[in-house]
């Protein structure tokens, strides 16, 4: 479509989001008991224009906190302790925690969000069209009729009947509501979309459908997407690059194909080994132990208590995230584990 052509000349190596040494902790103090949960601990990453970046990790690994922090959607007791999050919208840098007003202006115009549990993101007591008006109208700079024309056209392009605008959320099916929120998140053609487990609550068929829709919209608009899910098969289907998060840290990052073909970090190896494969009837091995308690994480490499390859160095010295092969990895024994 015509709006998309404009974004084409930009090179795909241009950085849209850069996160530097980001630390975000939950700091709690209640009835004399203090607790600090280091949910995001020293994360550095960069996301390019026109790419889908997947973030993978178990539940409570801190991946949800990471994108909340990136989106500037944190509330006490979660606090950013140090580091920075900078977007690059329309050629201008935007510091998420340095310029709250500019950040507020950028929401939905440049940065939109597809949320976890999207079933409940629409106000149950208002018609759907009000959401489009509230979220998008101010950003589009269009007169009323032109605005609604554009919204209807957008809905049709996404395979939705424009009449849904007059419905209440409870009258629509789950898949329909999820498509609607995708439509809502893309109607302003933002440069950056944050997708937090957008397919988790859906059944498998609808899930495929929604993934295809997201990918399709992204390709037409040339936006970047940060896509969070614990489901590695979803990452395989949609992500250009993926980052693996373990216990609040980024432990491996690389192009999706390479990460799946030759994972470097033992934890990534485990994640990929545990995927079911056609014709393979051997039992999947479970990783011993549980994800660490983030208020009292293991010293040095946080994965060492569960790592089959752990050596003394892993227990005393934290491995830095360093370039290796086509990506980056944080492990003293990178590349030594094999996918079983």
């Amino acid at each position: 479509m015509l709006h998309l052509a404009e974004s084409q000349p930009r090179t795909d190596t241009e950085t849209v989001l850069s996160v530097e040494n980001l630390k975000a902790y939950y700091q709690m103090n209640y009835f004399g008991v203090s607790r600090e949960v280091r949910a995001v601990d020293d994360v550095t990453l960069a996301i390019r224009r026109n790419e889908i970046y997947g973030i993978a990790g178990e539940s409570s690994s801190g991946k949800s906190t990471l994108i909340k922090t990136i989106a500037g959607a944190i509330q006490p007791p979660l606090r950013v302790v140090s580091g920075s999050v900078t977007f690059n919208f329309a050629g201008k840098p935007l510091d998420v925690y340095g310029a709250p007003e500019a950040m507020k202006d950028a929401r939905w115009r440049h940065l939109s969000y597809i949320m976890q549990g999207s079933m409940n993101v629409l106000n149950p007591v208002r018609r759907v069209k009000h959401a489009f008006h509230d979220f998008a109208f101010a950003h589009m700079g269009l007169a009323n009729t032109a605005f609604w024309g554009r919204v209807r056209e957008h809905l049709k392009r996404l395979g939705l009947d424009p009449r849904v605008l007059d419905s209440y959320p409870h009258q629509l099916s789950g898949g329909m509501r999820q498509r609607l929120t995708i439509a809502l998140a893309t109607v302003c053609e933002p440069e950056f979309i944050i997708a937090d487990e957008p397919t988790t609550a859906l059944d498998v068929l609808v899930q495929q459908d929604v993934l295809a829709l997201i990918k399709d919209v992204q390709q037409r608009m040339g936006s970047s997407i940060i896509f969070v899910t614990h489901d590695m098969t979803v990452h395989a289907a949609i992500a250009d690059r993926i980052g693996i998060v373990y216990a609040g840290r980024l432990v491996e990052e690389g192009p999706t194909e390479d990460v799946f073909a030759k994972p470097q970090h033992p934890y990534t190896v485990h994640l990929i080994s545990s995927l079911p494969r056609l014709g393979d009837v051997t039992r999947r091995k479970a990783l011993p132990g549980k994800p660490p308690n983030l208020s009292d994480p293991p010293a040095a490499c946080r994965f060492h208590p569960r790592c089959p390859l752990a050596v003394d160095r892993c227990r005393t010295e934290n491995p830095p995230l360093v370039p290796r092969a086509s990506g980056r990895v944080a492990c003293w024994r990178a590349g030594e584990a094999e996918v079983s």
Partner: protein
Amino acid sequence: MFKILRDLLRYNTEFLIGFVLTGAIFLFAAAHFFAPYPDNAIYMLPPDMPPSAEYWLGTTSRGQDVLWQMSAAIWNTMTFGLTVTVISRFLALAMGMTSGYLGGRTDQALMTINDTLIALPNIPILLLVYFVMRDQMSWPILALTAALLGWNYDARLIRSVALSLRTREFTRHAVFAGMSVPQILIRQHLPYVMPVIFFTAMNNLIWAIGLEVTLSVLGFSDINRPTVGGMIYWANQHQAIIAGIWWWIAFPIIAIVLLFLGLFLLAISVNEYIDPRSRLSRMGG
């Protein structure tokens, strides 16, 4: 239990104020056992004396010491409130847990009855009961009537907790282990319902004391038994405001307001301690 109390006193100012207020009022009320005059004796002292060194809070037109009257009155009023609360807790608990545990049609039927009772105006019904009982009205009958009218809100609350417990794993285990319904309710579910009971008890106590004050202010209870509302009733009967005997009215009002404030602070701070959601918002503060 002791640890919870210590934590609350140390970290929750509202609880501390409420605790001190209620405690002080309780001690003051308990002091009436050592009063120099019998509770219901009248015309023992010179009437209408303003507050002085001898009579700290003055005397009434009926020749009573306001200080000692108030001490006995608060004791009686609190006794009434506690009686109502205890009886109505049993009713709310029985109704709420049965309804929530059995679920389905029984639940629907019980809750319909419950909602019907909520919609009935309490005060006119209590007044009707007083009207037909008249001189045979005593405080235990009044307390029983109030308790019969004062449990339905809380039954609803307890039911919603019981309803959520019904589908939990341990309930199924208990059923398979052959425990009877009363056994399951008392041994397995009661501990989870206790915090709700405790919190509703505080609110119910406040309500019951308010009811007692209201009814006895109008003279619709045993008027010869000293109560806080009863004191105001007698003061009104003797036109204390017009006669300028302000201490007869002012001190009971102050005592009542302080008592309510104390109980209310206890109620909200205990609720905050029990409710995990308000705990969370406190972490941010």
